[in-house]
């Protein structure tokens, strides 16, 4: 069990994060660039002193322990494999530092390399390895020290899309087999959702939201998270099934009271050229702010009383004859909105 409260003060930035990671659990720190994610990892690894706080691992205080005395494995963003050592010697480096005899360290390293599927690349130098292979050597090197805490800094960000998918699957399996605590840093929600049991969203040096990936995907609490999971997000005051937003009141399926968040996916928004017959309840007149392709759909950015993104088909776009700056009627079904306490 890792229990950490990490405070790092810089002239223009303060990181203040409390974290708990259980043995066998995989936690993802998700956040925009500059949020303090990598700083958190460096502090846990002992590469950066805390200004305040604690790092307790199984009851032991790590705060004043130097990096080389912490049982931590770290996979760096660009792997940092030692260029002058072979893949095998890179992996054997950790065990050697722990006092394992050379032949035994190399045997262990060979075992780890074969576990990540690179047995036949043991003699290669890092610069002759592909990105995906280097990533796996870095993972093997970090695991070979038998860490209690595994730290991964953007482990997949240096890979191209296809390699990434393949390596992500492999990484998921190795993380599942690893019995210590794992903490990974990413700004890619897909990596976070695919790899982690729990997400901790960090913005501007603080935790803004944490929970299971599925829960966060449905209940974003900041604009950043809403954008990541692809939802329109608003804050308002609920009274029964009505939620009063800044300039509009929408009705929702849930019955709530007080401050709430209200979210709906862009695909739940229907667009009309004229005010539709029978007037559905959540209807408003908007202005088209922008139109852009979005996968095989078209994303329409709406301005007006309720700024929102709406996804429609290219055929619907042609039929509606939308133009930027032009008027449009928008509606969202109560059943597809989702409100939850703020």
């Amino acid at each position, binding site marked *: 069990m890792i229990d950490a409260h990490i405070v790092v003060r810089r002239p223009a930035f303060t990181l203040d994060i409390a974290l708990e990671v259980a043995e066998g659990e995989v936690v993802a720190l998700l956040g925009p660039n500059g949020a303090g994610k990598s700083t958190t990892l460096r502090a846990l*690894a002992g*590469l950066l002193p805390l200004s305040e706080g604690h790092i307790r691992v199984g009851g032991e205080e790590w705060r004043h322990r*130097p990096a080389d005395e912490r049982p931590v494995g*770290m996979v*760096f963003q660009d792997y940092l494999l*030692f260029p002058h050592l072979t893949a095998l010697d890179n992996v054997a480096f950790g065990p050697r530092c722990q006092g394992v005899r050379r032949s035994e360290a190399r045997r262990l390293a060979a075992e780890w390399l074969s576990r990540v599927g690179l047995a036949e690349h043991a003699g290669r130098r890092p610069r002759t390895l592909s990105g995906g292979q280097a990533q796996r050597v870095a993972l093997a090197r970090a695991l070979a020290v038998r860490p209690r805490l595994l730290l991964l800094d953007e482990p997949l960000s240096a890979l191209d899309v296809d390699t990434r998918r393949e390596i992500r699957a492999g990484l998921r399996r190795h993380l599942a087999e690893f019995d210590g605590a794992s903490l990974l840093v990413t700004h890619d929600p897909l990596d976070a959702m695919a790899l982690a049991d729990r997400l901790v969203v960090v913005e501007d040096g603080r935790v803004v939201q944490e929970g299971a990936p599925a829960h966060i995907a449905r209940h974003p609490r900041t604009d950043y998270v809403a954008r990541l999971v692809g939802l329109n997000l608003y804050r308002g005051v609920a009274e029964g099934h009505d939620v009063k937003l800044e300039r509009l009141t929408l009705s929702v399926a849930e019955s709530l009271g007080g401050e709430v968040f209200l979210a709906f996916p862009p695909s739940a928004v229907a667009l009309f050229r004229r005010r539709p017959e029978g007037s559905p309840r959540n209807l408003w007149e908007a202005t088209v702010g922008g139109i852009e392709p979005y996968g095989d759909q078209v994303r329409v950015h709406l301005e007006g009383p309720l700024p929102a993104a709406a996804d429609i088909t290219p055929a619907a776009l042609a039929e509606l004859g939308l133009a930027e700056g032009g008027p449009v009627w928008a509606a969202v079904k109560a059943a597809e909105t989702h409100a939850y306490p703020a």
Partner: protein
Amino acid sequence: MNRRAPWALVLPALVALAFLVLPVAGLLVRAPWSTLGTRLAQPEILDALRLSVVCATLATVVCLFLGVPLAWVLARVSFPGRRLVRALVTVPLVLPPVVGGVALLLALGRNGLVGQWLYRWFGVSLPFTTAGVVVAEAFVALPFLVISVEGALRAADLRYEDAAATLGASRWTTFRRVTLPLIAPGIGAGAVLCWARALGEFGATITFAGNFPGRTQTMPLAVYLALENDPQAAIVLSLVLLAVSVVVLAGLRGRWTS
């Protein structure tokens, strides 16, 4: 369109080039090529050459053992007065070598600050010995090594050292197994510079170690002396030093400079 280079720059540039090349050309033109073989085989020349190479190599080894750690401390440890220490390291660089020799005598001479204790306790006296030559050369050449190794250390990616630390490597292990191999090219370049400087060293050597053939008379000293009574021999000796410099330069170009 290619714009014409102004004469105000081209002319001095050509003069500078001639100024650098002419003396060397003169050396080649006036060399006694016909008797070169026999002269080269003279025992005095071979003695001086051997002594020079041995002393320069030993001085380089001394510089490596002392200079690399000093460069590491300057590059990796922050301590009060670091800038002052760095300035002190470069003093032998700007000090006239003769003054360096005098300073060495005052420090390591038989009555010197440290030298008297060396003599009293260990019976060691450095001035006017072959070891003295090595000391004088190392004194003058050390800054070259420290500066180029410190530069390499500063340019090296510190994150490799972080990676080593997370793998459980102490700072000493990290230095030995990660930093040193990573900056090997910088150390090589520094060692070559250091060796070349030691090989050509004159002022500090003659002041501190004297000029005894076979013991402390290195090539540069032999050249200077030969010029008085046998100018032809001076030219031959100079040619040998020139050849050595060219070989060193070629080695540097191939491996360590672009």
